[in-house]
């Protein structure tokens, strides 16, 4: 049971990374970004390309990092992939969403466009890498035996630490920097932000970069924990949205807490139910919580 809860926290932290990006994007751009899961997938496959093909071809050596199943090159690929995915998101915004915004399309049109983009990204991944499961590492991954009958792999500890680090950096960015505050101000009241002279175009670009970067990291971390499939991000989409709604739409802190709750509940449910019921359990939690707090845990008043 304790072990399931720990695994739940690992899964939840991955959901949280995706959900935070999704909620930030919703706060600024006011539409449900359905391609978010597929940005996760893209980030994961970009790392596969960098770490298994491009960087070795360039002669970058892999330096083993203690008990982890991967090394420094993989870590570098992870950071690079966050950047690459951010750039891809910015290009997509310029080509697809920006013209729609300029035409003052309704949020539902933008959401449907993003759904189309989700199919496109996934199909491209199928075309390039094929439908089979892929792995970052084929090494045997021994687990540590911890107290309370918890077996935890070093990779999973890395996932938790890395998510914690990203969340901390994001918190500092949003709370302490001028741009971060401008981002929150724009989410609060876009017209007043514009009136204050805040460059809302720049804020939009940064929101895409952050959201896509975090999504890429989530995809890579899931790939480290499990495996890579072209539909991995797509299957994350429902938990991502559930986490966003659970936490209160637009609240990064809410998305973090919502993601963790969903991860834990989903994993713990497998002690009593078939794993196929995981999504149903997630939605049961969502429904129950919305009865009590219709605006989510950290929703505005």
């Amino acid at each position, binding site marked *: 049971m304790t072990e399931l809860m720990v695994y739940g926290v690992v899964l939840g932290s991955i959901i949280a990374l995706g959900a935070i990006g999704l909620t930030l994007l919703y706060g600024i751009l006011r539409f449900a970004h359905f391609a978010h899961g597929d940005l996760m997938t893209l980030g994961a496959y970009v790392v596969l390309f960098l770490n298994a093909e491009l960087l070795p071809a360039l002669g970058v050596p892999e330096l083993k990092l203690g008990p982890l199943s991967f090394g420094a090159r993989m870590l570098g690929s992870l950071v690079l992939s966050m950047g690459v995915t951010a750039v891809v998101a910015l290009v997509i915004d310029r080509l697809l969403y920006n013209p729609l915004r300029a035409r003052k399309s309704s949020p539902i049109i933008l959401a449907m466009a993003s759904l189309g983009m989700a199919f496109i990204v996934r199909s491209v991944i199928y075309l390039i890498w094929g439908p089979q499961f892929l792995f970052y590492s084929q090494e045997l991954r021994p687990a540590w035996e911890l107290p309370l009958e918890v077996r935890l792999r070093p990779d999973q500890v890395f996932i938790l630490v890395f998510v914690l680090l990203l969340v901390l950096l994001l918190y500092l960015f949003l709370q302490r920097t001028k741009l971060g*505050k*401008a981002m*929150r101000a724009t989410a609060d009241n876009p017209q007043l932000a514009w*009136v204050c*002279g*805040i460059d809302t175009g720049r804020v939009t670009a940064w929101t895409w970069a952050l959201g896509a970067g975090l999504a890429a990291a989530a995809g890579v971390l899931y790939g480290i924990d499990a495996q890579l499939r072209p539909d991995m991000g797509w299957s994350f989409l429902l938990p991502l949205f559930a986490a966003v709604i659970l936490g209160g739409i637009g609240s990064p802190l809410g998305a973090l807490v919502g993601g963790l709750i969903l991860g834990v509940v989903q994993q713990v449910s497998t002690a009593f139910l078939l794993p196929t019921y995981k999504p149903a359990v997630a939605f049961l939690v969502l429904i129950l919580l919305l009865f009590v707090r219709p605006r989510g845990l950290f929703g505005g008043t």
Partner: protein
Amino acid sequence: MAGLDVHHISSGYGEMSILHDVSIRVEPGEVVTLIGPNGAGKSTLLKTIFGLLTPTEGRILFEDADVTGMKPPHLVRRGMSYVPQVDNIFPSLTVQENLEMGAFVRHDGFAERLDELYTFFPTLRLKRKQRVGSLSGGERQMVAMGRALMLDPRLLLLDEPSAGLAPRLVGMVFDKMAEINRAGIALLIVEQNAREALRLSQRGYVMAGGQVRLEGESGQLLQDEEVGRLYLGGRR
């Protein structure tokens, strides 16, 4: 130096035209009130001056420069500021962060200006770390005014600053406006409490049906029987 000069403008929302051939002026350091019934076009006039709406005809001059059609981000840099009637704060940001956003395009002297603002609104200094959404209506109005003052404007446009406030807070808002004006800032006020607003101002314009119907010294307007009967809620 001339203040604000609005020349024969017509304006509205898209196809719907609201203002017809409106001309007003605000001298430097002056307080001017716009009064008139709901739908007279007072708020539309403020929005047009501040570039939230583009006039279809006419010209707007601010300090001798033609600012017709200029957008708010440029106008705030030129010394004009605006407090909307609603949605005039960032509710999830703290008091201090709201003021920081007001000074977003300011490059220097932020700390000094912040200190001046806090001296001006002592309550805000005490609550600087609180989220504005959790403050009372009067405090929010102070934040909204404070945000608009962060760039040292020379002209402040205020849309219904006392709307929805408890009577004792209305007095506080008027006191603050008088203080702001004593610092040399010109005010153009749209106000339902027309009598109070006219007492604060040097001049006023009576608007109806998207046009200026009457203009004059505030004292004169306060004495005018028809104005009193129609717009000031009876004789007093």
